[in-house]
């Protein structure tokens, strides 16, 4: 049998054509190896397929020191215009990129922006910017060439805007000081407030998913899902699979993606909140994270990660 195996190996190694031998003389080692390889592949493939298939498709960045972003903090994606908007907090400016990743515009509102942190564009074409430097939700009307700062109040207290989202009309503002999510209409009249009664320090990030609101309690490592009317529907406990979650996104399949600033990776949970896998790693090279700040899906199923430490936004796709 050993001799038969030896011959088989030789045949394999020389790709030698020869008359097939009878079944009785075939080497059992090769079929056995094939079975082992098949079983191993069957066991390993699903993990490799999910964990290894996210690749960098776009890198939104500037390559020279003069142009390089400094502390990008947020990304807004305009589906209609097919544009990415990056908030470059360190250089007090907003940058727009095409869907293909080409730089379109650099905008700083005539040098008046002071520590912009997040932004959205509403359906009426207005740009709303969270300016941390002046604690303002600033409205920029490009057509009218107006920039109007707005200091918000809620329940008799100053609001310190942190994260900002829009459904096209209303503005969802996360108040850093209270950790409360406040909903304003376009005239900045408060419509609704979502308070996390169970949180230590309130919410740190949130995303609108259809009509529901997904909000992250960073310290408790929990994600709360609220219906449009503010009713708590679900709670996902992220457990010890994340160290310092700073941002969340919900994928097209309903999976929850959690950006971990300290582990420098993305942890993925299924619709029921069960941990599935994680990807990305610490580093400075493309496809790696240094001090990631925000995560979101673009309308074309790309997963965008804003990396403050690496001064870029990378779009991953599989």
């Amino acid at each position: 049998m050993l001799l038969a195996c030896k011959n088989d190996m030789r045949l394999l190694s020389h790709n030698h054509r020869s008359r097939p031998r009878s079944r009785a003389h075939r080497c059992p080692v090769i079929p056995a190896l094939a079975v082992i390889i098949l079983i191993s592949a069957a066991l390993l493939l699903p993990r490799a397929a999910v964990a290894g298939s996210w690749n960098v498709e776009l890198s939104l960045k500037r390559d020279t020191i003069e142009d390089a972003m400094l502390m990008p903090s947020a990304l807004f994606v305009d589906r209609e215009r097919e544009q990415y908007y990056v908030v470059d907090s360190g250089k007090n400016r907003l940058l727009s990129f095409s869907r293909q990743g080409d730089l379109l515009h650099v905008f700083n509102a005539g040098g008046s922006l002071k520590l912009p942190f997040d932004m959205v564009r509403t359906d009426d074409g207005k740009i709303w910017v969270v300016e941390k430097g002046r604690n303002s939700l600033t409205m920029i009307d490009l057509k009218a060439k107006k920039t109007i700062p707005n200091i918000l109040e809620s329940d008799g207290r100053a609001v310190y805007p942190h994260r900002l989202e829009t459904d096209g009309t209303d503005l969802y503002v996360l108040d850093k000081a209270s950790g409360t999510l406040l909903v304003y209409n376009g005239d900045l009249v408060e419509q609704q407030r979502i308070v996390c009664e169970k949180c230590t320090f309130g919410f740190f990030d949130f995303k609108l998913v259809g009509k529901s609101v997904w909000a992250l309690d960073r310290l408790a490592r929990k994600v709360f899902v609220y219906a449009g009317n503010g009713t708590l529907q679900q709670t996902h406990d992220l457990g010890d699979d994340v160290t310092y979650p700073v941002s969340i996104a919900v994928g097209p399949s309903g999976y929850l993606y959690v950006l971990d600033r300290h582990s420098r990776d993305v942890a993925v949970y299924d619709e029921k909140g069960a941990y599935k896998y994680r990807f990305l790693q610490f580093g400075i090279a493309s496809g790696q994270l240094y001090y990631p700040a925000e995560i979101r899906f673009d309308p074309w199923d790309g997963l965008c990660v804003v990396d403050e430490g690496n001064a870029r936004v990378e779009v991953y796709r599989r």
Partner: protein
Amino acid sequence: MKNSLVLFFAATVVLCGMSPAWAGPNDACYTCHDRDQFRGRVVHKPVGTGKCVTCHNPHVGRYRGMLSHEGGRLCFTCHTGEAETFRTGIVHEPINRFECTRCHDPHASDRNGLVRKNLKESCLECHEDFPERYRFTHEPYLSGDCRACHAPHNSERPMLLVADRDALCGECHEPEDLAPKHRNFPGTLRSCLTCHSPHGSDRKSLIRNYLHEPYAEDCSNCHEAGSGKVGVSACAGCHGDVLEQMQATHSHLTMQSGNACVNCHSPHAGDEKRLLLSREKQVCARCHRPSIEKYKNSPYRHGSIDNCTDCHFPHGGNDMAMLKGNGLEVCALCHENQGKFTHPVGPEVPDPRTGRMITCITCHNPMGTDYKFNLLLEGKRQLCVQCHGEY
């Protein structure tokens, strides 16, 4: 013949039974090692049963003392339950470093638990900035009963407390005794440690040494009658500059309701001027424990970091991780000459991977890494070829 056999077996049994007394393994050891050094009121079981070889190899050993494992790892080969339970929650630093013998004698002691010295002496050996006693000293501290409040190995609570703070005070101090002494206190008595030191103080009733001015003058400076709540705006009335510092890209302005300032500061009294709720690292660890654990457990890390605020702003900052400047400025606070003779750094030197300028933290992470000099990657090649791929 039968009798002879019985006699033979009986003699064998007696001799075997006697053997530890005169020919056991310990005796061989004690021919050189002074037996008196292994005597005490409490003797470690392997020593008492003459099994020195449980821990020591008599011929050769990889570790000091010819031990079969290093430090506490050896202890955990028998104390397997403790190996599990002692490493959960917040772990006392000696346990973290497998240094059981810092507190315990592995052979014998006159104290329970084979503790080397009396409890207070043991604790103050490392916690050397704590005095023997204060002008006014809390009774458990004075009597050396640190374990009245702190767990020696691990705990789920900060500062290894054995119970939540107020509950811990309540174990000895009955509410009905305290009520007459706190007549104007709004609502239920709580947050004892915002005024009182649990160890000792120069003031009666263990009121902490540094008093917040408005508190020293009159409670009504901040509190409306019958209300315990004071908002950030009240603090900002005097400390407006701090609120401005918090209007930054990153800040500690965060609180569900009430007052963000009291996350870290006592509004009443403290052990130092900043009126922090406890020592700085402990205050930061309340939220940033993973960072501190990483720092503690990294094989290579920046030495001599006494306080987080040596490098980080406490209230708010516009750089990553609220550093006191970019990756050059913050290091230059101490390393004045570093940028002048090392690898080119600064605004003229771009990192080809990101376009940003190269700074100290492009290659080093003072919070700890697996590589020498706190390098982010192995420094002989791996780190360099990140940018210098042509080599």
